[in-house]
């Protein structure tokens, strides 16, 4: 049975703590770029927590929203890549074949969510910080576009493990680095093709929305809207 990976972000649970951001840094060999580069918008994080203000003192409201690659089924980034570096994988992910990327940056322009990071320079690690690098994930070099992969290395290693044990993948057997770190369980990862998985259950919630859903990109990331007090009749 083929899988269709999806992520549910429960905005009612998200506290904006950004543990997911650092977890992603560690898992996916994402470099830090330093103050000067950060100042001109070249940070590399694959997931960010957007903060939106509404209203003013004394009644300001804040909304946090983690934004990562939405792994769209109708992805604007895929069609525009001249070399198939950005393409749709068999399991419905928006794949990014780093070695195939020639760096036209067209995908990043086409992405309505602005979730793609580009290696403007070769990333650097002050030794021995490089010893932390995850050997399961390649270290990208200059001129390559990168983005959230739904921790494809974890998917692959779980699939290989299941294959070795001659069984199907179990829901919750593995998860992405962001979801694993998320203390309030705002991020839930799983197989949308499995009707019994937690992610399927949550994705069919009445609070479910898609980010920029009106664009028709068919994201596989679902957001569950914040509720209000005494408005908790649906989970």
């Amino acid at each position, binding site marked *: 049975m083929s899988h269709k990976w999806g992520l549910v972000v429960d905005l009612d649970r998200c*506290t904006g703590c*950004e543990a997911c951001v650092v977890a992603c840094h560690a898992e996916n060999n994402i470099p830090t770029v330093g103050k000067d580069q*950060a100042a001109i918008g070249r940070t590399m994080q694959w997931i960010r927590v957007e903060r939106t203000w509404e*209203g003013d*003192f004394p009644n300001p409201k*804040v909304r946090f929203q983690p934004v990562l690659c939405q792994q769209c089924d109708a992805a604007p980034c895929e069609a525009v890549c001249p070399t198939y570096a950005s393409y749709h994988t068999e399991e419905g992910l928006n794949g990014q074949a780093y070695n195939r990327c020639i760096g036209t940056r067209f995908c990043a322009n086409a992405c309505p969510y602005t979730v793609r990071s580009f290696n403007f*320079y070769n990333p650097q690690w002050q030794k021995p910080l490089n010893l932390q690098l995850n050997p399961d994930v390649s270290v990208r070099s200059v001129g390559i576009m990168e983005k959230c992969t739904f921790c494809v290395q974890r998917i692959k290693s779980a699939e290989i493990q299941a294959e070795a044990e001659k069984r199907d993948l179990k829901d919750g057997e593995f998860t992405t680095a962001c979801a*694993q770190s998320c203390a309030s369980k705002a991020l839930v990862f799983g197989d949308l093709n499995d009707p019994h998985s937690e992610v399927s259950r949550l994705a069919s919630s009445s609070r479910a929305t898609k980010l920029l859903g009106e664009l028709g990109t068919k994201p596989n990331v679902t957001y569950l809207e914040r509720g209000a007090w005494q408005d*908790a009749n649906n*989970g």
Partner: protein
Amino acid sequence: MERRNFIKISALTGVAATLDACRAPDKQLIRFIPEDNLIPGIAVWKPSLCTLCSAGCGLQVRVMQGDAEVVRHGKQGVIKMGLAKKLEGSPQNPVNAGKLCARGQAGLQVLYHPDRITKPIKRSGARGAGQFQVISWDDAVKELTSHLTALQASKSANVLAFLGRPLRGQRRELIEKFLKAFGAPPAVWYEPFDEAVLRQANFLSFGHAMLPTLDLARADYVISFGADFLGAWNSPVAQSIGYGEMRRGRPGRRGKFVQIEPRMSQTGANADEWIACKPGTEGVLALGIAHVILSQKLAPQSAGTPAASRAGSQIAGWSAGLPEFTPEAVEEQTGVSSAVMMRLAHEMTLSGSAAAVVGGAPLAQTNGLFNALAVNALESLVDAGRDEGPILGFTPEPPLSNAGEPAAPAQASFAGLNSFAQSLLDGKAGAPQMLMLYEANPIFTAPPATKIREAIAKIPTIVSFGSFIDETSAQADLILPDNAPLESWVDSVPESGSFQSVISLAPPAVSPLHETRPMTDLLLGVAQQLGGDLARVLPFTTFDAMLKAALLPLRAQSGSVTATTDDDFWQSVQTQGGWWSAPAAAGLKSAARKPAATPADKQAPTALTAPEFAGSAADFPFYFQPYVTPSFGDGSTANLPWMQELPDVLTTAMWSSWVEIHPRTGEKLGIQQGDLVEIASQAGSLRVPAVLSPGIAPDLLAMPVGQGHENFGRFASGHGANPLSILAPVVEHTTGSLAWAATRVKLARVGGPEQAKLVLFAGRMSGFPHEEEPR
């Protein structure tokens, strides 16, 4: 740009060189024989413990084989060794249940930090000039012992001082025993944001001199007075887990959460309702709500319970129904409307289970204890006596002979530091002549008004066990670098976060990368060498032997490990990453509020005291509130690049510090987003970029703690400013704890964005309505 660059050149160049280079052997380092037996490519998960804050979360470390450049047997070379690749929360640990916060994730960068001191070093230049020479461990240990022997010989053991960051567990036990047996005074445990006020208040109100544990997963209604429990306060991971459950863990029930604070924290940003009250009047507001509940008899069933009467009896006028605290009177003091107070009182009492919790800035006022006691009294009023038991409880202490809840709260750490500094500055006989420094950086974290820098300069010998050069350890004469936590035997007794008693403990997850030695083993070795009392009290050669001896009695207790032999028990504790008691049943949770101790002397009820501020409102028109960020804590993790590049959750600032100003205030003073401003108090002034934020009272300025390091390695030095440096040395009246929110400041624009160099992640986003252009 880069020294070694990625070069791909056209086919015209270097063809000959290329073909030649194919056969040339690379310049190669020696390879050492691997020390561990790991299979390449296969990850092993090892338990460890997060030490970056005091919450004591359990870790799982992903260890994989890799090539590391190391020094072994005096030679530089490459070794295949187990390397920590990723930190996850330990799923078994009752505190964090498999989860980990942003700072905890960055623990890896402490291990692999390029600025770690890799060898023992000795000062070679003037003190503080930053010139050190590498010495051998033999010489280093000899030097340390000779200093100590000299003190012993001259019968002046009492001039040895130990300055450290507060610890809980056997490490503290070891240090305290060492000092006691040596004849030295007790250690000075210093942290700027100590919770002495809250511990004192909880001791008086509930009989526990501890931080509270919140069972948020069951809560229907939470009022937090300044407690940033989702951010940096207490045990954030445990609290976040509970918060998620409170919001969406129970179908059909979504708990309401109200945050009361004048500067919107990350926690406040998540609240259903955020209410700003005047700084220092949180206690008054709590009593205002209590007044409504009492006068309208909204919670008649709880008034008579012992807990309520105990917490209430700490407040003057409680039994009389708080006549002074009518909603109207409270509105005048706090700025919160009486209608809101009434509504909160009704909502709280109508909810299934409710809690009131206090933390952070309300306690850092001159009347901090009053604020805490007032909120505790409100908490008792609304929480106690419910069927499911209270939301706010306390973590039981593990049944160890030498750990055990203190019968009374320890002295406030600021008071300790102050008297330490004072004794040095006075230069009286018996002032410390030798200082052992361990993971504390008071020169950065204490207000300069304490003159701690001058005091430390007077100590003839300073030995540091730190892993990094920071402002304080730069003054050291001898630095004996400790192993990183992931390379050491670690243990901790979490003070809160669980309703089970927990001892987190783990063996080293990886071998030491550098020529460092665990401070614990070093002290034990020195104790053996010095002999006498020391050798008798600390009869261990290594720290793990001490840990084992301390934990073995737990085998008889019912808990997470059942083993028939001591060795089995010890093995299981190691693989599990600690020991914890059996999960508390629902009934037991309610018992978690049973007083552990009663105050020895009957304390008189505390009466309302108004907060006092350093600086007059005329000269210094703004309140000033430094706040702890989840990324930097007290500044000790400011050197981690992941933390520096993590956008602040509310302002989205990176690699810098800033001051939050309300846009209306900014408009009045001609300050725009990103301008450089000067903030001045009685005690000093600093310059930072301004961030305009709608989530702050117009008469308040707030600034994050952690940046502004002058000497803390390549990633932290020279970014931003340190708000602690302009604090007046005001203290909470009763406990002597630093009242870090009680300084008033003035504000002026001194430069534009070019000077300020503020880095915001959220692009040019026009953040709030009045900045948006009419469209």
